[in-house]
């Protein structure tokens, strides 16, 4: 084959790849652009930072209550899951035998694969009905904690595994106790990466809807939760109900607006995690 034909063939195959990849290049921008365009009529500071129970079917003037509800749920979920995730990762690195390590990582990988709606189902029955916590912040936070637990644990583990083995070996050779190894050796070197994992878990908790749909949220009637045993409203479920029920274009605009706010919120946590990761590398 001549050189020219080869180059020609290269060009054809590269064009085929480009053509196939085209949707992946266009769609993210298109989807995001469409959402922002639809949200534009309602999106302003007043929309984000006010919350008044409006007239009629959930037509609230703002989404601040929903925003706080989403954040509260995600924060509580991470607060519940973090100690367990970090402790599991530490046990994995410090004490677990090879067999236990295999078992632990298999368990957490399986847990990560299970669809969140299944946890929501279990939460509805065990927490809401059996324990009689009701549809509440507490039930939702616990269910969400189980959803983010594997993510947190695997991220913490990855952070610990980035510490050079020599450090740990040197510490052990000096006869440091396990507590000292954790606090003096591992903590200073890995807290940035652990925190990055935590931010990613927050982003994940903010974007899940299925697990809290039955366990934590109501559509309207509640603005601020009084206690951890009262229901909340969240951005995710707000969008869901509005998308499903509304016929009024005004209401749909509110749904698009809420979607834009939610994406912004998730993006903030994602970007913070990215920045932190970059900063940690230096």
């Amino acid at each position, binding site marked *: 084959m001549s050189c020219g034909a080869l180059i020609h063939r*290269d060009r054809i195959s590269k064009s085929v790849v480009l053509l196939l990849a085209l949707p*992946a290049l266009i769609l993210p921008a298109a989807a995001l652009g469409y959402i922002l365009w639809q949200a534009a009529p309602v999106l302003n500071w007043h929309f984000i930072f006010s919350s008044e129970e409006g007239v009629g079917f959930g037509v609230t003037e703002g989404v601040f209550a929903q925003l706080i509800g989403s954040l509260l749920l995600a924060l509580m979920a991470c607060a519940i899951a973090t100690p*367990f995730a970090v402790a*599991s990762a530490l046990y994995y690195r*410090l004490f677990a035998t090879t067999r236990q390590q295999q078992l632990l990582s298999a368990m957490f990988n399986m847990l990560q*694969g*299970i669809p969140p709606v299944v946890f929501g*189902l279990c939460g509805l029955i065990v927490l809401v009905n059996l324990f009689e916590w009701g549809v509440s912040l507490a039930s939702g936070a616990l269910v969400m904690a189980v959803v983010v637990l594997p993510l947190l644990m695997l991220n913490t583990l990855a952070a610990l595994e980035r510490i050079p083995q020599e450090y740990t070996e040197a510490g052990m050779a000096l006869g440091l106790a396990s507590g000292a190894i954790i606090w003096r050796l591992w903590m200073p070197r890995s807290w940035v990466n652990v925190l990055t994992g935590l931010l990613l878990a927050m982003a994940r908790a903010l974007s899940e809807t299925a697990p809290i749909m039955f366990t934590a949220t109501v559509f309207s009637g509640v603005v601020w939760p009084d206690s951890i045993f009262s229901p909340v409203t969240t951005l995710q479920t707000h969008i869901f109900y509005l998308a499903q029920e509304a016929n009024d274009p005004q209401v749909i605009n509110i749904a698009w607006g809420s979607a834009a706010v939610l994406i912004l919120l998730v993006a903030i946590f994602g970007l913070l995690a990215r920045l932190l990761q970059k900063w940690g590398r230096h």
Partner: protein
Amino acid sequence: MILRWWLASSALLSSMTIVLVIGFLLHSSWPLLQQQGIAFIAETEWYPFEALYGMLPALLGTLWSVALALLIAIPCGVAAAILCAEILPPGLRGAVRFGMELMAGIPSVVYGLLGMWLLIPLLESQLDLLTGRTLLAAGLLLALMILPTIMVLSEDALRGVRRSQREAALSLGLGWDVSLWRVLLPQAWPGIRVAILLAMGRAMGETVAVMLVVGSIDRIPQPFYNLLQPAQTLTSRIGREMAEVSVGSLHWAALLFCGLMLAMVAISISLLAHRRVVTA
């Protein structure tokens, strides 16, 4: 010593979550299994009020929507990964990857909103359908949702191919397409396989977005490959009916059985993916 016990008990408790969940699902759906055997999995009629709990329509719906999503997302996602890893200059590569990560971060309920108020009217007007709420809509939406997973993980896999392998292909005078098919893709395949498996799990378990676009009608499409009809998936059934069902009834047990099936398939998928990572 105290530290060790504390860590061990936390690890034990966390890893036991999955056993608890499965055990609980099994325990709660047991009444249904006891009463109706296992044959209802292959039955076609789901009428909870007449105690008919045929699982076939929802199983078929899940199968079709996931298959359609994979069919679209695999070629597209892998091609985008090849484009990023092999063709584009570093600056553009970063931009495309950033776009993908952004897309991966869009919550599923927002995809549902897009599906319901953009995709469905579009399908209705373009294909002249009675209702746009179809398996096709669910498949397209799921494809969009799993695209980032496939692309990002496949790109990592392609980047992980050793330099020496590329150099060997070059020195043999292989063309770009030959070295792609014979060297790069086979070398990256374990990673791409994991990407596909994870995406499949995600597509199968996706609830809210699918619920909004699939139509939620418990009927096997006529004929069974007709994707332009409303259908039901396992997740959309759980989402639709869970809020209305009374605890302890057979209907409730049937919904929990749907959850159990989802969990079992998800566990098999993650075992498959995990095993390959270990051996690769």
